[in-house]
């Protein structure tokens, strides 16, 4: 089997990709679908720069084969903005609280934080630090990332309350 057709849903859109089974999900996204938001930082599953959401769970897309995502639903950093492309509260909060510098870890970090806030809408500092412990950042020392995620949680919770 040299190539196969992989059908999946990426950022809400059905796509079909022809790829070798061994193609890593990160390469499928970046090279076949031109979604270059997720990055490769370590190749061994330690850094989390390639983090995407796969069927409702945060995963490291350098540790998943294209063949394994047949029928799956994937969300990348490109897919978390609101209607009309309005930045997600996390995207705003990272900017507002200086939660990034070189930007390389940022897409993985935000997509992880996005799922974390789904799992736990009101995390304390410790929960945030453990929640993003699969994502390395070399620039910020995490302090402002933690602050940004907490601020986004507040923002999102306030918006939910208003809705209700």
């Amino acid at each position, binding site marked *: 089997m040299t190539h196969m057709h992989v059908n999946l849903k990426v950022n809400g859109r059905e796509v079909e990709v022809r790829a070798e089974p061994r193609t890593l999900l990160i390469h499928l996204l970046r090279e076949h679908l031109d979604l270059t938001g997720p990055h490769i930082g370590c190749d061994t599953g330690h850094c989390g720069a390639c983090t995407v959401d796969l069927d409702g769970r945060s995963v490291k897309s350098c540790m998943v084969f294209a063949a394994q995502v047949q029928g799956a639903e994937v969300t990348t950093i490109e897919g978390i*903005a609101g209607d009309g492309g309005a930045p997600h509260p996390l995207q705003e909060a990272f900017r507002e609280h200086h939660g990034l510098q070189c930007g390389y870890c940022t897409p993985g970090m935000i997509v992880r934080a996005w799922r974390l806030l789904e799992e736990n809408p009101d995390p304390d500092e410790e929960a945030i630090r453990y929640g993003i412990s699969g994502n390395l950042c*070399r620039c910020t020392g995490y302090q402002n990332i933690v602050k940004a995620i907490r601020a986004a949680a507040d923002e999102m919770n306030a918006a939910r309350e208003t809705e209700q």
Partner: protein
Amino acid sequence: MSEQAAATTEERIEKLQGLGCARKRVEDARFTQGKGNYVDDIKLPGMVFGDFVRSPYGHARIEGIDKDAALAVPGVLAVLTAEDLKPLNLHYMPTLAGDVQAVLADEKVLFQGQEVAFVIAEDRYAAADGVELVEVEYEALPALTDANRSMDEDAPVLREDIADKTEGAHGARRHPNHIFTWEAGDRAAAEQALASAEVVAEELVVYQRVHPCPLETCGCVASMDKVNGKLTIWGTFQAPHAVRTVASLITNIPEHNIRIVSPDIGGGFGNKVGVYPGYICAAVASIVLGRPVKWIEDRMENLSATAFARDYHMSGKIAATRDGRITGLRCHVLADHGAFDACADPSKFPAGFFNICTGSYDIPSAHVEVDGVYTNKAPGGVAYRCSFRVTEASYFIERMVDVLARKLDMDPAELRRRNLIAKDRFPYTSALGWEYDSGDYHAALDKALAAVDYPALRAGQKAGREAFERGETRTLTGIGVAFFTEIVGAGPVKNCDILGLGMFDSCEIRIHPTGSAIARLGTISQGQGHATTFAQILASEIGIPADRITVEEGDTDTAPYGLGTYGSRSTPVAGAATAMAGRKIRAKAQMIAAYLLEVHEDDLEWDADRFQVKGNPERVKTMAEIAFAAYNQAIPGIEPGLEAVSYYDPPNMTYPFGAYVCVVDVDVDTGVTDVRRFYALDDCGTRINPMIIEGQVHGGLTEALAIAMGQEIAYDETGNVYGGSLLDFFLPTAVETPTWETDFTTTPSPHHPIGAKGVGESPNVGGVSAFSNAVNDAFAHLGLTHAQMPHDHWRVWETAERLGLHG
């Protein structure tokens, strides 16, 4: 316009978002949305991929290379070896340190991970398949991985290509594995100070081999356009112009036909200053194949082959009076440079600015001597988030002062206070030859000690030690005090160059007719936020809001020539150029305003964003009005347009400083350390953007934590490298990283146009010392004078074991 006129000067200054404003970063919108453009994001029509075959041996002779099986892999286009590069004379390339480095191993491999062959294929999967099938036959040779043995009589000769050269780029070589000896200071005076001293403390301080490890590895896309003969290389370059010039010199392609572009860079920290074989191979492959070639290293390649840092073995002696007045300092450094001398230092400084090692102290006599040697390790020697060898120097003196404090039985903060250079001594010329531009060290130390309530910390430590003695706890607390002086902003062209390229920097400004602007610089951001901060400098200089100024860097076809971003040189050098270019704009604007207002230039005064007639605030011309007139109104004697360029050759380096205090709790039974508190006071002169400064300090401290507490690229005696993946190379997560407290004083640089000094690297320089001093301090009362880094669990436990704490 009327509304604007009504605004007060203060209101208008605020709108500019200039100096001192915690302006949000303009870079962040694209990064937070996954729209950055890093080198691996670049995709060109017809692009192919290159991948390396690397040496599994630390030292071996290459008996043969068989490419056939690799070439048979579908999609593999070519396999390059040294034999293929020889006709082009590209099998070796010049290093930044005046040595040469094999692009592809020529007959011998000299370190594990060295580049042996370059496989080019249609995609990266086929390239990797090809790499696996290149058969290389090796004859293993004895490896040399202990720098202390490099100059032994019976040491294996590593560099056969230069074995009989007795003269290197930096003077005489005493041994085939010797690179240089470099010294500074007055040897006789320092010896005399030591001989006559009341107290002498002595220590071997080793700063282990580490790696900058930015989250993005190195890589490039090289594209030769055969029709017009132009070679374009997009890559992870911290110094794009220098790369262009060097590329032109080694390929003989005229410099105008080479375009180097640094796109977004995912962190550099010194890793991306050097020129690596991957860049050369990709360029050659593109020239040969006529197609764009991408090369991206993986993390293991990054850690084991490109750009280590440190590996300094520093033997020191420090002399003092009994009451704690330091009288002299000597240091000999054995510098392990690996298999090729590829250190990234200004050419006249083969040991960088290590002679800043008298630190922040008024030491009357000092002498340093550095011997660089070859070993079977990766080349590099980059300034990992510090100016050239400054963190080594700072670590050395800060440990030596603590060692001396033990010997004198004096509080280490007090010993520092007695020896810090007094405010009224600036500009201060050190015994090792630097002119420190400015400082108020005592104020910084006092503020830091007060902020942490230092006496209370010491009292708590004493109580804890007593409880430990009574068997009530197995935790010891250490308090690390560190004071540092950086030397950054290289540098004055009279003594700072890299391969003959003067280390000035540049800014070119073009004001658009409607009063917005673009500024281009010779530097390149790797996360520092230049697009945000340089616009702020300019906003304050020319009165155009920062939001209306585009800052562009990294494309050698458009940016003015400059030496790039490393060694905290962007703000001191390119930031100065920005201010100076802004002042040229303002000078011309003043002439135009004078014409428009029909007054003499001298009758005008600058007011935030406009010129007004002195004594008549109703008669004004805003910068926007002046810009429009500059392009669209015929003004006698003044040519149209409003542009300026400044090439800034700094008169001196800048000398940021700071005082750090670290409190660490050490579990003596497990060796686990817990940073309970870390306070960092930085003085980087004028503060351009406090938010960005704080972010830089957080990040630098986290890197310092990693270095002090765990990072090490180690080799075994056969040349195998350890620490070559992120499983073993310590990058702390959010869980291991403590909360940082930041603070500041402001002592502007007297020679910098806006008084700024640079900050990005200070926290690494000061932080490593503070962590190490704290861990050592935890055991100080038990007789420990110095334990080597990294202070990981194992080594901390071993210290406790040696001190008999495990019963």
